[in-house]
């Protein structure tokens, strides 16, 4: 049975995230106040035969550990 996995990939803390900043700055203009700490990352969803491969896939391919953190969520 293949396993469904969701990988959340975020910019590493401390690295300038202009995308998050741009979103944060655009929100008040649209009437949304009180929003902070916006960060934009990537989401990879996939089905794998062998869930033990996921960690390696993240390290090697899905994320760049120098600039990104990742979190693997498996389930259903």
């Amino acid at each position, binding site marked *: 049975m293949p396993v469904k996995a969701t990988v959340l990939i975020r910019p590493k803390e401390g*690295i*300038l995230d*202009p*995308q998050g900043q741009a979103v944060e700055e655009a929100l008040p203009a649209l009437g949304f106040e009180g929003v902070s700490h916006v960060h934009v990352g990537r989401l990879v969803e996939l089905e794998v035969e062998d869930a033990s491969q996921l960690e390696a896939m993240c390290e090697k*391919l*899905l*994320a*760049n550990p*120098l*600039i990104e953190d990742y979190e693997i969520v498996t389930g259903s």
Partner: protein
Amino acid sequence: MATRFGIPQFPGSCDEVDTLLAANRVGDAELLWHKDKDLKGVDVVIVPGGFSYGDYLRVGAIPPFSPVMQAVAEHAKAGGLVLGICNGFQVLTEAGLLPGALLPNVNLAFTCRQVDLTVENTETPFTHECTPGETLSIPAKHTTGRYFAPPEILDDIESNGQVLLRYAEGHNFNGSLNDIAGVCNAARNVFGLMPHPEHAVDPLTGSDDGLKLFHSLASAAPMALGSGDMT
């Protein structure tokens, strides 16, 4: 004998023919197919610009796994010369052949602009035909060109003289740390830069300052370690 250049071609490469034309001005160049592990005995590998594999997932993330890049990594480890331009620079950092990483431009947009670069170190196979402090006018065009390295690495490459090119004042549109436009490895045989020297080889198309990097490579290649048939 003329220096032989090999240019890996991935699906989605864009500037491979431009690079071929530029390298042919100083030596003999040919394209290398991404599915082949054979570097055909070239002296210098130039990983070209473009959007290899559509830039999908993350720029430069997929090509390091291709057969041709495995061979390029071996070539580099043996001391062979490797230049990465734009997407090629991104690929080389992803492949671990160069320090640091490239992040989205601070203006968050693809930007195509002629920029001035200052040559920081001329004692390398890539820049020895330049004079120290010289300004080169070369076009840059990318969405993901903000050079980043964590502080320890940044200190290292700065103190080692690995920063070969910097954006001149007012020209760093992507927000690169320390205005870094191009970086080489500690062994000085692998070099990557965001601007496109292959698009600055003919005054008719704007500038021929980029030709200096190609001339440097052509005359340095015979001296480089492990040039010739490495595979």
